[in-house]
């Protein structure tokens, strides 16, 4: 159960190799976390991360999960993971940036990004939210991106996928009001991670620690939307309103 101070006891991470999600769970594991389930594409790849969490005293399961699998497979996956215990917190953290230059010429790559980040995410969020509503409590933290708010030429397929996910999470939050389920959308800016290695950092670039702290704080305060760093809460509405000609000139 989540306690009065927002600390949870069991966490399911969808995309268990996400550095943001792992840093969040690390941070929480110092408090009340007893059980962590890391859902990853390649089970062997998460061994070291699982071990690090175990050394904090958590019971850790690593389970195979393919974001692009069918809805039936996802439903079965959620049923299995939640069979015997409640899940207090679900972090939806998987996603790919893809390569915009490839996507420009190859619709298959474009669709791959959408299938993972958007339709894949939605098809697992549906059974997750249903399950949490049945148990009468739970938080879902959906990792979106500020890219969802204003697409950039340099990664607009990624932006589109996150925009879809962001809108879906926001609707899900309303749909499950009154069920005990809380859906929180997390919008990080540019974060230095494996995923963004070699990319040119955007302004207000941040690191996983800052994002993890923002997530933990957001869960505690039951926020609907969390920005990391927080200043983006004020910057993004401005960027959203920059005229298109200027936006292009900015090389954004």
């Amino acid at each position: 159960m989540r306690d009065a101070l927002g600390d949870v006891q069991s966490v399911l991470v969808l995309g268990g190799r996400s550095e943001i999600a792992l840093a969040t769970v690390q941070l929480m594991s110092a408090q009340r976390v007893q059980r962590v389930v890391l859902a990853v594409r390649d089970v062997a790849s998460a061994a070291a991360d699982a071990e690090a969490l175990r050394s904090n005293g958590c019971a850790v399961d690593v389970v195979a999960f393919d974001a692009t699998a069918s809805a039936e497979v996802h439903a079965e996956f959620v049923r299995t993971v939640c069979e015997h215990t409640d899940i207090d917190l679900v972090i939806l953290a998987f996603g790919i940036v893809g390569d915009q230059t490839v996507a420009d010429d190859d619709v298959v790559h474009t669709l791959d990004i959408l299938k993972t980040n958007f339709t894949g995410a939605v098809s697992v969020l549906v059974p997750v939210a249903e399950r949490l509503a049945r148990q009468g409590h739970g938080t879902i933290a959906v990792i979106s991106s500020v890219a969802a708010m204003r697409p950039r030429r340099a990664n607009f397929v990624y932006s589109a996928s996150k925009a879809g996910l962001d809108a879906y999470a926001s609707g899900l939050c309303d749909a499950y009001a009154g069920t005990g389920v809380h859906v929180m959308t997390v919008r990080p800016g540019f974060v230095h991670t494996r995923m963004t290695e070699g990319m040119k950092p955007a302004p207000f670039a941040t690191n996983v620690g800052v994002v993890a702290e923002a997530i933990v704080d957001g869960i505690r305060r039951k926020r609907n939307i969390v920005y990391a760093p927080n200043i983006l809460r004020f910057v993004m509405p401005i960027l959203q309103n920059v005229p298109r000609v200027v936006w292009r000139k900015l090389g954004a």
Partner: protein
Amino acid sequence: MTQPLRRTATMSGWGGTAASTATAVEPDSVEQIPAILKESATHRGVIARGLARSYGDAAQNAGGAVVTTDALDRILQFDAQSATIRVQPGVSLERLLQFLVPRGFFPTVIPGTASVTVGGAIASDIHGKFRHGSFCDYVETATLVTPSRGAIEISATQNPDAFWATAGGMGLTGIVTEATLRLHPIATALMRVDTTRCADVDACMEAMVDDSLGERYSVAWIDCTASGKSLGRSVLERGEHAPLDEIPANRQPDPLRYGHGMSVPGPPWAPSGLLNPLSVKAFNELWFRKTPRHPHRGYVSIPGFFHPLDLVRGWNRIYGKHGFVQYQFVVPYGQERVVRSILEQLAQHRCASFLAVLKRFETQNDGMLSFPMPGWTLALDIPVARSGLNTILDSFDEMVMQAGGRVYLAKDARVDPQRLRVMYPKLERWESIRGELDANRTMRSDLARRLGL
């Protein structure tokens, strides 16, 4: 038999934290209870909920059933000869007071609010300013409907194990459907109150231990924002039921008139930052200053002495949408330094505690999860809208545990389950008795899930 009403509801405790959603079941007679327990056995269990004054998650059951006892509020039998009263579990202490005081009786143990039900009072084995026992010490007998053994009569002599597992058992042994309480005779409805200002926590404790007044009730309001030399400066109130010959002449004709006075609603909404270190300091300063410098004696009504906070309905909302926790612990006599050290650290961390109350106990009963033990108990209200609070409170828990003390489950919303096992050494015994009364854990609550009970 009619079917109880059912609806989906999101519930939290008095602290307004960690809400969860469940099916609220509203029986209109106690005869419906066994069937409700049976139906709930297969799906996330059931817990009873009275007036929801437990601060944390004791009276909620995410995804399961929550039985509200509002309609089970009949006073069944009053016997002045034996000074007992038999009631249903949903009868509130306010209702008991209204009924009993004019008849010259008083529920022996009464907590800081009259808005609790008899069922809840048994489940939490509540205590108050009375230091010679807790609520269940004055429960003569009760009927408990259990999932595994059906309805059983429990008392300190009949099924004593079940009785002492239920006293303070947080509703996890079954649902009490009626209880007989032993009463205290009173001559008037007024309280004689001696009020003293104490310069610091040591002076306060010393004054509290001094029994020369022989008073029945005592409580100290501590200013948690004071530090240094005035650490724990406080206002000590000692009360006794006023004898007939002492009360003012204008009350003589009708000495047992129970005044419940006026109450005003609390704010429907308050900004989360309303209670900040500054405003809390100002309030505490005022509270301290309004008390005359020298000890004085006065006569006040029963609610005026026992339930000053009941005058503001819904005062809990003042903490804003994130709510608050009440941290209450007890440490044995000889461990006064723990009280002092926690007060020191609170002042240091600027943990704005709006209200801090110090009381003491002289006895403890056989309740396996009962809170009171001979010693000092300090209760603090702390808003949760700050990070790192669990770390601070965990360090308090550690000190309390090391001192052989414990935290109060009716207030708890965050204790580490492993520490709880040390704090309550009879927990294992309780679990085995619970196993007999409820083999399949049909009685469930969020508190039980959180603490692995």
